[in-house]
């Protein structure tokens, strides 16, 4: 493997004091949050960007082939370009921070971070994205980092010559399987659905690896076994109810995502799957509170859609701020 040296963009610290009241606080630094920030800066809106990282889920995406303007770009490269564009503007940033609580006081929103920092803002755009969904089966939580993984690019090197299972039937599961096929001795691809949701182009690539990959569609995971270390999994055929034990040493869980909306659960209306409900102008049921990208109820989660939604949310927030004056 060719040795690479990755240098991420530098993040700018906040210049503001805690008493400062921002016109707009953007929670989340993925494609939606960063686009919202650039639009806000161009409208000369006093903005604070708070996020755990800059780049969000795209940072864990190896290849992006459907963001217009780039036929092919790595996820981190694309996010570096986003960051570069954000850096052109004097936007206050709090990176490495997560929001613990968001409340609406009389006139302002109050934000509290996990580390105890407090901020106030006239409007807020929530663009906090989604995170990996757990299976919620016995043994899963206990064996995280002991064979159970949610990041195939991070942890694949530990499974050289070993048998592993990939759970899920969507693009991320197939991409994980493609990462692992070069390393593991055998892969079991297991999904609850009876047909694969992944793009046909990925399914075709994996089907070429038939010698190494065994498919178990329409199976569920009953249990993940092992004391201090993963020793195997038990799967069950959904129609015949037969169980089968697979002696794998790694389990990569790629069954989609859940929205990062816990911190506003008591403030704003969420839909059944926990997404923040918005209208077509990104407004939530709370005046001055907007949402954009994967955390919102917008249909379809794509980088290009999230970016567009971020722009739209800022433009709506801008209109709202004008009326406020």
């Amino acid at each position, binding site marked *: 493997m060719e040795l*690479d*040296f990755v240098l*991420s963009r530098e993040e700018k610290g906040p210049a503001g004091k805690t008493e400062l009241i921002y016109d707009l606080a953007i929670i989340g630094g993925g494609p939606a949050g960063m686009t919202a920030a650039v639009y806000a800066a161009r409208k000369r809106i006093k903005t604070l960007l708070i996020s755990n990282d800059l780049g969000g889920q795209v940072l864990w995406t190896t290849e992006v082939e459907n963001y217009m303007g780039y036929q092919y770009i790595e996820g981190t490269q694309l996010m570096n370009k986003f960051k570069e564009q954000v850096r052109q503007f004097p936007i206050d940033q709090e990176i490495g921070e997560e929001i613990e609580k968001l409340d609406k006081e009389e006139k302002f929103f109050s934000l509290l971070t996990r*580390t*105890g920092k407090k901020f106030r803002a006239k409007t807020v755009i929530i663009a906090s994205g989604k995170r990996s969904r757990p299976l919620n089966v016995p043994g899963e939580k206990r064996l*995280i980092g002991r064979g159970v993984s949610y990041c195939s690019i*991070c*942890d694949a090197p*530990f499974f050289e010559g070993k048998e592993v299972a990939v759970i899920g039937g969507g693009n991320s599961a197939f991409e994980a399987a493609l990462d692992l096929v070069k390393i593991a001795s055998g892969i079991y691809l297991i999904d609850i659905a009876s047909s694969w949701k992944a793009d046909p182009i990925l399914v075709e690539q994996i089907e070429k690896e038939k010698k190494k990959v065994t498919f178990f569609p329409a199976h569920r995971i009953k249990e993940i076994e092992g004391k201090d270390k993963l020793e195997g999994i038990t799967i069950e055929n959904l129609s015949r109810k037969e169980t089968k034990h697979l002696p794998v040493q790694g389990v990569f869980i790629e069954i989609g995502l859940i929205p990062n909306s816990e911190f506003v659960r008591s403030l704003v209306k969420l839909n059944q799957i926990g997404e923040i409900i918005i209208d077509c102008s990104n407004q939530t049921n709370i005046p001055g509170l907007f949402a954009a990208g994967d955390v919102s109820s917008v249909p379809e989660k794509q980088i290009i859609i999230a970016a567009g939604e971020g722009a739209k949310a800022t433009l709506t927030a801008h209109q709202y701020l004008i009326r406020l004056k």
Partner: protein
Amino acid sequence: MALLKDEVQNEVKERFKKLSGSVRLVNFTQKIECHHCEDTRRLIEEIASFSPKISSEVYDFVIDKEKAQQYKIDKIPAVVVEGGKDYGIRFFGIPGGYEFNSLVSSIIDVSRGTADLSPESKDKIGKINKPLHIQVFVTLTCPYCPGAVQMAHKLALESEYIISDMVESAEFPHLTNKYGVMGVPKVIINEKFGFEGALPESSFIDAIMKASR
């Protein structure tokens, strides 16, 4: 040929313009260079050429035994990032891939002589009065890992009791076996207590404090 691409070189040089205090990169290798030993040495020498504030020293792990003992280096390739003194910041295995970020950030922090941690965090670390050894296991393809490495290195910078090692998993399989590392980042404190994942600053420090008791 240079290890770093032109664009990366330029960006690093730009960031190093802000360096204030001098930084020394102490590298341990051996005559017949191990896997990644040569690349690590070349990387260190290349980086040292980017700024007059940075110097590099290369030692042979076997011949310069005393130096290795002085820095408590027990495996190679190793890089110590030190400033006015040895803060306890170490990289074992090549700081390539995503870990290149950790190397650059540790140079900037050491040059400044202080880490950008919150006053509460510094307060807590100040209470540590026993030696603490933090090892952060990484892979070079792990985007979450530099967060954990940089946090551990900042703690080492702030406390004279803390030694912080980045450990590249592929280079030291005997250590990943010993500590049962199967996912990264994995943080091991004082050879026994450990946790998985990159934690935010306050939780990371709480975990360290718990282990230091």
